Structure formats: structure tokens, C-alpha cells
């Protein structure tokens, strides 16, 4: 339990992840599903970023005024990539939603169910 308290950042991201998952599963509106997905993405990014936290760490940029310890730069680099991936997924999902709306006039999955 103590471990969990210390790792509350991780725990928060786990909870956020599950909230996002809930939205993806339970929400009927496609845009809301997508928002759930974005929440999940954020949760995972937060999780990975939290692995790089260093108490009292400085930004990992060398030069004048920089001091040890630096925050872990690797997760930051990874998540920069992750964000781009998330952006790409969102862009594609949105354009699919646009097309779905154009074609069927609705983005509620209950209404779309009959279309299939």
C-alpha cells in the first residue's frame, strides 16, 4: 500500500486509462469514443512520463545553470513520438467520422448499427 501511495502518479494514470476505456466501450457517440481514446492516450503518456520523474530534477538541457540531477530524458523523447502517433490516430479517426456523418447522417453507434 505504501508503494501505491508513493507511486500515486502511476495509479492516477491507470485510473485515467480505465476511464478512457470506459468511454470507448460505453459511449455510443463516435466522437465521444474518440475522446475516450484520447484520454487513454494521455493516460499512457502520463504513465511513461512518470517513469522519468526525478525528484528535484532539472530539465535535461546542458549548458549554463544546468545542475544534476537531470530528469530522465528518455521518456520525454519517447512520448514526443507517442504524441505524434496519437495525433495521427485522431486525425484519421476524425476524417472517418466526417465521412460516416456525410454518408449516414449520424454518428450514434446505435443508429449506425442498423446500417451494417
Amino acid at each position, binding site marked *: 500500500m505504501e508503494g501505491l501511495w508513493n507511486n500515486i502518479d502511476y495509479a492516477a494514470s491507470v485510473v485515467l486509462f480505465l476511464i478512457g476505456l470506459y468511454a470507448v466501450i460505453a459511449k455510443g457517440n463516435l466522437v465521444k469514443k474518440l475522446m475516450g481514446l484520447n484520454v487513454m492516450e494521455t493516460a499512457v503518456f502520463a504513465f511513461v512520463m512518470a*517513469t522519468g520523474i526525478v525528484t528535484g530534477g532539472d530539465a535535461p538541457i546542458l549548458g549554463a545553470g544546468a545542475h544534476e540531477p537531470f530528469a530522465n530524458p528518455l521518456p520525454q523523447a519517447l512520448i514526443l513520438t507517442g504524441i505524434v502517433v496519437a495525433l495521427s490516430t485522431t486525425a484519421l479517426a476524425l476524417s472517418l467520422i466526417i465521412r460516416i456523418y456525410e454518408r449516414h447522417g449520424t454518428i450514434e453507434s446505435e443508429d449506425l448499427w442498423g446500417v451494417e
Partner: protein
Amino acid sequence: MAGGQWPAVLVISPLVGAALCLIVGRWAPRAVGYFALGVFTLVSVAAGFITYTVSAVGSFSYHMGGWQPPWGIELRFDEFSVSIAVICLVGWLALMFSLHYVNHAVPEPRIPYYYALFLLCLGGMNGFAVTGDVFNMFVFLEILSLSGYALVAITGERIAELAAFKYLVMGAVSSLTILFGIGFLYALTGSLNMTDIAQRLSSVEPFPTGVAVAALTLGFCVKAALFPLHVWLPDAHAIAPSPVSAVLSGLVVKIGVLGMLRMYQVLYSARTFDLGALNTALMWLGAISIVMGAFFAMVQEDIKMMLAYSTISNIGYIFMGLGLASTFGIIGATVHIFNHAIIKATLFLGAGALIYQTGYRDLRDLRGIAKAMPVTSACIAVGAVSIVGIPPTAGFLCKWYIALGAIEAGRIFFAITLLFGALLIFVYYIRMLNAFYFTPATHPHLLQVGEVPMTMLIPIVILAVLCLVMGIFGRIPLSFIEPAVIEMLAPVGG
């Protein structure tokens, strides 16, 4: 360095080629297909050299940017990476098939995008298959997934976007789950390199490792469409243009399996982690997949829908083989990754040829088509017989190995499920063959249609011949896989 610079050619040229596709498409829209095919020929040559090198000198690695792992990214070419050979083979043939097919299936302004996405998808798979770095694996997984989602929607057919969206949501959730697992592994070991993780994993807490393994498994199982996580697959695979279906069904779902194999590789060499529960779960899900996939497929009248459900069954085989965790079981699963790719590509391209010529995709409309398109029908028949696992075709080998594996593991029940499951699959394939061969035509005018153009026919024939050849000369892929599997299982005394 073994392999020279071919690894870089392998992973980079499809990406750069895709970028150039749009430029070529702007000036010479008709040439895009040939350009893409040319690019992928180069990739295939690279894959050929690499495969040859692996077979000649064993596994080797390529350090991207010259940075040593675990600091830099390592491309790892071992026996499982040889799946690039089948990716390139099936991908190349599907691209060739596309040359004529797209004009019919894809709206004209989208054609350059089609080829760019196709190259990205294939390049993403190659990158995924050879990388030795878990985060890099995620990046390439996204390249191939994104292009896969878009390729499903590209026909612009009535429910294409819906199918693609469903695929996208499930795919994105699974990617995130995988990234979550990767994050866990990173937090535990501080490394992203697979070999390095494997070494460091033996000294960490088992429970969080279990969570990571569960997350990765869940993610890869969605990608592989294991029952009950398969719901995205049938629509997506049925609605996509046929060459895309061939690639999605034959290769992209295998990426999930390949991911599982990589994970197993790490876990087996880490040694400490008990895989019993995971294996049992996979075995059962595999068995259920086989049966459920077959039952769903039986009630389909749409030929591509049927093929899509049959993929679920076949994924069931593979997972059952993995879960058995016996040498033969895993060999069978790995062999089936290769063989099912070839078989399913035959079937989907064959179905594509039928749709191209007739415009129908319902079995009831395609009756008697064998008289009009004998070569295509014969190839489909070979594929059908093969996927059921009738010897001496490619499908039989896997059935034989997984059955042996089940018996080796002392789980004869699974061998029985597997073999009877195969019969269930046959029930619907025989229905298809009956319709093609032994039933009078519903639309008599179809008897005049004739065969498809050569660029479409040749890939189908090559694949059908491979279905037969791989059954008879099945030792060739096995000679790669067997030592790798034995080596992988060695730490647990398999």
C-alpha cells in the same frame, strides 16, 4: 557486418517510396502502381539477401545510426525475423495484383494514396518484424495499423468507413495497451532493448511483470483477432479491396502473433516468469476461436466474409500452438504464420479476381463460375483444400505439428478440438467449392466472363502453387524455425 546495408534498405525504402508515391502520383498517376511495385521489388531483394544471410551465417543485428544497443536501436535478424520473406512475397504479389484491381475497386483520385498506404503498411510490417527494440516496435506497429485502417476505408463503399472506424478504435486501444505494457517493462528494467530486457527481467518483481505481460498479450491478441477480441476483423477484412484483404488477413493479423512470439522470446530467456496461466488461457481461447470462427463462417454467403471468419479460426490454431508451449506446438504455430499467409492470400486474391470479373461476391451469385474462370477457381480450390489441412498442402503441416504438440504436452483434448475444428472449416469451404464447380450457374451470362488479366492471374497461380509446394517441401521453413524454437524453449527445458 553480416548482411551489409541491406537491413537499412529493407526498412527504409518502403517509407521513402511511399513518400515519393504522392509525388509520382501528381505527375504520372498511371505510373504509381509500377513505381510502388518497383520499390517493393527492391525491398524484396533486400529481404531475400537477409534471409539468405540468416540461413547461411545465423542471426545478426544491425545498429541503427551506429549506436550500440541498448542506447541505440537494434535491428535483429533472427529466425523469426525471416517472416520478412513471407511479408515481401505476399506483399509483392498483392501489389502486382493491385495493378489492375485498383482501377475497379478504388475511386480514381485515391489511387496514389492507395499505393502509398500499401507500401507503408508493408514497410511497417517489415520494420516491426525485424526490430529489436520494444518502443520502435510500437512505432512501426502504428505505421502499419494506421495505413491498415485507411486501406479498409479506401474503397469508399457503403460501410467501409464504419468498418474502418471499428477497426481503428479497437486497434488504437490495443496499441495503447501495448504501449502501456512497454511502459511497465521500461519502468521495471530501464531498458527498451529486447535482449537487454530479457537479461534484466530476471531480477525484478514478478507481479508487475505479470501485469506487463497481460497488457502486451491483450494488445497483441486484439491485433491478431483472437476470439473474443475479433469483432473488428470480419467487416474490415471483407470490405477492404481484395489485395488489401489478402495482406490484412494474411500478414497484418500475424503481426500480433509475431509480437507474441517476441514477447515469449523475452520471457523464456528471462526464465523466472511462470507462463502456465498465460499458456492455458491462450490454449483455450485458441480452441474457442477455431470453433467459433468456423461456426460464424458457416452462415456467411458473402465469399469474403467467409474468408474473414476463417482467419479467426486459423488464428485460433496459431494461438493454440503457442499456448501448448511444446516444441512441436510452437513450431506448428510458427509454420502456420507462414503458410496461412500464403493460403489466405491465395483465397482472397482469388475471391478478388471473381469479384473483379463478375461484380458479385455472394456465393449464390457465383455458382458455376468454375466453367468461366477455371484457373482462378482451381487456385481457390487448392487454397480451400489447403486451409482445411488436407495433405499434402501447406495447411496440413501446421495441423500435424500442432496435433503432435498437443499430444506432446499431454493435452489430447486440444488435438481433437483442432482436428474436428478443421472439419468444421471444411464444411463451409466445400460449400464454396460446390457452388463453383458442381452447381448450375445462377447468372448464365457469367459463363462468358473469362479469366482475369495476367497481372492478376499470375499472383494467384504462384500462391496456389506455393500452397502445394510448401506442403510437400515444408522442411524449408522448418529448417529455420526448428532450431530457433528449440533454442527459445531451452531455458525452460522444453
